[in-house]
């Protein structure tokens, strides 16, 4: 077994109530590495033949929670959740920082593959001695806080019963779905540690569709051995030294950007992307730091970057709200994009969103979409039962609950922004295009809070348009932050992006080589392994179905809103140029060896040893 891998995965069939261990050979692991890569491979092998017919929320879909070879060995341990996405109908790799990743590796597993559907609400307990499916009847539909407290109590009691002698147990690692996931809100997140989420892709809904409330892991073993221990030790030390010197990240996390991204680069969503500029200083790092951060340094297992801070509101109307930071994405999506410009309101909405298990980006995106429809008189007060006006944090809280409980118009909004737009258009007797121009998404996946119109942020014209992850802001296709190297690598080796950018890339690849023993280099990743994973993701995305199959090239586009000029700020009048987007999309396809419509060519599939995809792609190329 190559270094870094625990060596086996837990295969759980919820329909039959059976668990078994499965292994992968070294060649597959070298070709797909782990995390997002391995997940795509597993999904292609098991569901690829019938991909277009499988509904993402049916029992046939798989739910995967995988680690990679570098998880918990490289700083910033993460877990990667995947499956067939109910939003894009392709594969989205979605990660979150959590101790679940290190616990499951110490329990001797690289991840969990869940298939089937449990007859009643259940959770899976993974330990090094035995793994079992247990009833979660009491916690089904409960909020994040209640779920964590109940599971912690139950699992600690069970573990103490099994091994009474060993002393106090440290709490186990848990990934769970909130009320939003349980009622299958299509963009719900897989939550962990109360405030962290695998947000993109809607895998909370996939968990909900399987009657799976949580996966709990507790390991007391060692982390897997690495291939070259001495070299790893040296590289670990070097990496830590570099990460410790990142003082901005350590002091403010991404929380500093709430003001800067809006004011300076003009790429922060305001009122459902109608504007991208604001000059409210209150929604930025220093203000949060002095007013709300009760714990200024908080990190996950083995992380030196330490970008997390804990917020708590101790007085006033939102007393008792607890959330992580909120980070830049949540400052934008739970703040400015809902018209909320006070820090307290942003903390409150973030706390509500986290507790309900909405994805902090995708959930509020749909909320803002609904609020804009209300602003334009398309949806009225009767649809909601209250008035969702911009900037009203209490009304927005009600809206979040409405979607999570699937009540009134919330039932439609729970389909995600794209599908909700089409359904509401039908409901109100309008053409879909009339509403889709307010929906900010790419291939069903709502876009992260970095606009492309001002061209001053790290995201540019085609960043989202051609990405196989849809609107994922951590995996865009801009150079340097490239689809072929950075994000695919961190999602497949499964560690945190923020432990990656400041470290020189050759050093990270040396690290990967020392851990796994594979002859991996930056070049081989850029030319072979990365493109292989992305191409396989693209194949599955093109196959799509059953409710929506994205058309080649036509759907490789930004949402209409990005082509409207910015109404204010230093970049007033700027918009994303369609001709430039088309040009960059073509160049991107060319780099990856796809044809002009974005369909992988026969030669590319052969070069990347994906020849079993050829029949399906041939049909697409001809059709």
């Amino acid at each position: 077994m190559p270094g870094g891998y625990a060596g086996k995965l837990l295969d759980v069939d919820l329909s039959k109530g059976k668990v078994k261990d499965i292994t992968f050979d070294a060649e597959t692991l070298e070709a797909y590495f782990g995390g997002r890569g391995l997940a795509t491979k597993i999904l292609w092998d098991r569901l690829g033949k019938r991909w277009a017919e499988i509904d993402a929320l049916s029992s046939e879909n798989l739910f995967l929670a995988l680690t990679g070879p570098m998880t918990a060995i490289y700083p910033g341990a993460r877990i990667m959740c995947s499956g067939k996405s109910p939003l894009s109908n392709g594969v989205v790799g979605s990660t979150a920082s959590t101790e679940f990743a290190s616990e499951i590796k110490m329990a001797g597993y690289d991840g969990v593959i869940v298939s089937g559907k449990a007859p009643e609400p259940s959770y899976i307990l993974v330990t090094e001695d035995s793994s079992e499916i247990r009833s979660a009847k009491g916690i089904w539909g409960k909020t994040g806080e209640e779920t964590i407290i109940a599971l912690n109590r139950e699992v600690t009691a069970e573990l103490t019963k099994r091994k009474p002698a060993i002393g106090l147990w440290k709490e186990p690692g848990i990934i769970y779905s909130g009320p939003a996931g349980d009622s299958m809100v299509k963009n719900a997140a897989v939550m962990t540690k109360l405030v962290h989420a695998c947000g993109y892709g809607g895998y909370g809904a996939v968990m909900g569709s399987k009657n799976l409330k949580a996966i709990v892991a507790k390991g007391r073993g060692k982390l897997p051995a690495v291939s070259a221990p001495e070299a790893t030790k040296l590289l670990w030390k070097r990496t830590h030294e570099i990460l410790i010197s990142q003082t901005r990240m350590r002091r403010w996390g991404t929380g500093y950007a709430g003001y800067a991204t809006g004011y300076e680069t003009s790429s922060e969503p305001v009122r459902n992307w109608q504007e991208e500029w604001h000059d409210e200083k209150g929604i930025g790092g220093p203000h949060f730091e002095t007013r709300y951060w009760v714990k200024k340094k908080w990190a996950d297992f083995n992380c030196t970057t330490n970008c997390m801070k804990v917020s708590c509101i101790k007085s006033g109307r939102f007393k008792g709200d607890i959330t992580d930071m909120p980070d830049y994405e949540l400052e934008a999506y739970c703040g400015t994009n809902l018209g909320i410009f006070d820090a307290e309101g942003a903390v409150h909405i973030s706390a509500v969103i986290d507790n309900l298990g909405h994805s902090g980006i995708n959930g509020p995106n749909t909320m803002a979409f609904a609020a804009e429809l209300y602003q334009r008189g398309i949806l009225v007060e009767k649809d909601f039962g209250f008035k969702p006006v911009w900037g009203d944090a209490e009304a927005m809280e009600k809206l979040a609950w409405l979607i999570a409980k699937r009540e009134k118009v919330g039932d439609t909004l729970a389909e995600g922004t794209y599908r909700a737009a089409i359904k509401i258009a039908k409901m109100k007797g309008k053409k879909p295009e009339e509403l889709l121009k307010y929906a900010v998404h790419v291939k069903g996946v709502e876009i992260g809070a970095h606009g492309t119109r001002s061209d001053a942020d790290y995201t540019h014209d085609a960043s989202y348009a051609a990405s196989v992850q849809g609107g994922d802001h951590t995996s865009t296709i801009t150079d340097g932050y490239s689809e072929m190297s950075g994000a695919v690598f961190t999602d497949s080796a499964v560690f945190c992006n923020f432990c990656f950018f400041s470290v020189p890339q050759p050093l990270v690849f040396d690290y990967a080589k020392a851990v796994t023993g594979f002859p991996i280099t930056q070049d081989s990743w850029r030319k072979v392994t990365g493109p292989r994973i992305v191409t396989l993701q693209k194949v599955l995305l093109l196959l799509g179905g059953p409710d929506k199959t994205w058309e080649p090239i036509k759907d490789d586009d930004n949402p209409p809103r990005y082509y409207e000029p910015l109404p204010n700020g230093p970049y007033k009048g700027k918009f994303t140029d369609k001709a430039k987007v088309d040009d960059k999309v073509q160049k991107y396809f060319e780099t990856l060896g796809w044809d002009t419509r974005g369909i992988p060519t026969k030669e590319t599939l052969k070069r990347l040893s994906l020849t079993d995809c050829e029949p399906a792609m041939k049909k697409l190329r001809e059709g």
Partner: protein
Amino acid sequence: MPFPGVEVPHLCTQCKDYPCVASCPVDALSVDKVTTAVIVDKEKCISCSKCIRACPGNVPFLHPGDNKATICNLCNGDPECVKVCTEAGYNALTLTQEGTNVNKRLFSRPPIEVAKDLAVFFFGEKGKEVI
């Protein structure tokens, strides 16, 4: 951990009366004369967990590797944890000498109690709900 951020280091504070040492049926525990740390003789330890129950703070545990009692031995007076904490710039841990500092008496409390206080300190009234 029902609240984020309330993680507490789980360390031996070297009680004056050493209940763990007194509870050991096979004399596997002893007190280091220089550092006052509790030293575990792994050869003698029979993994009976009596020291864990005797400890007012539930501090010792059976090590997953060899299943023997594990108690902080202060790294012979030069603790590695303090070194890395200083190196990383947190300065959360400081080394104090017995008899010269009041901190030891102030902070030697069971970790669960510390966690409860910390939760209240961070989150106010809501923190009282901590387990």
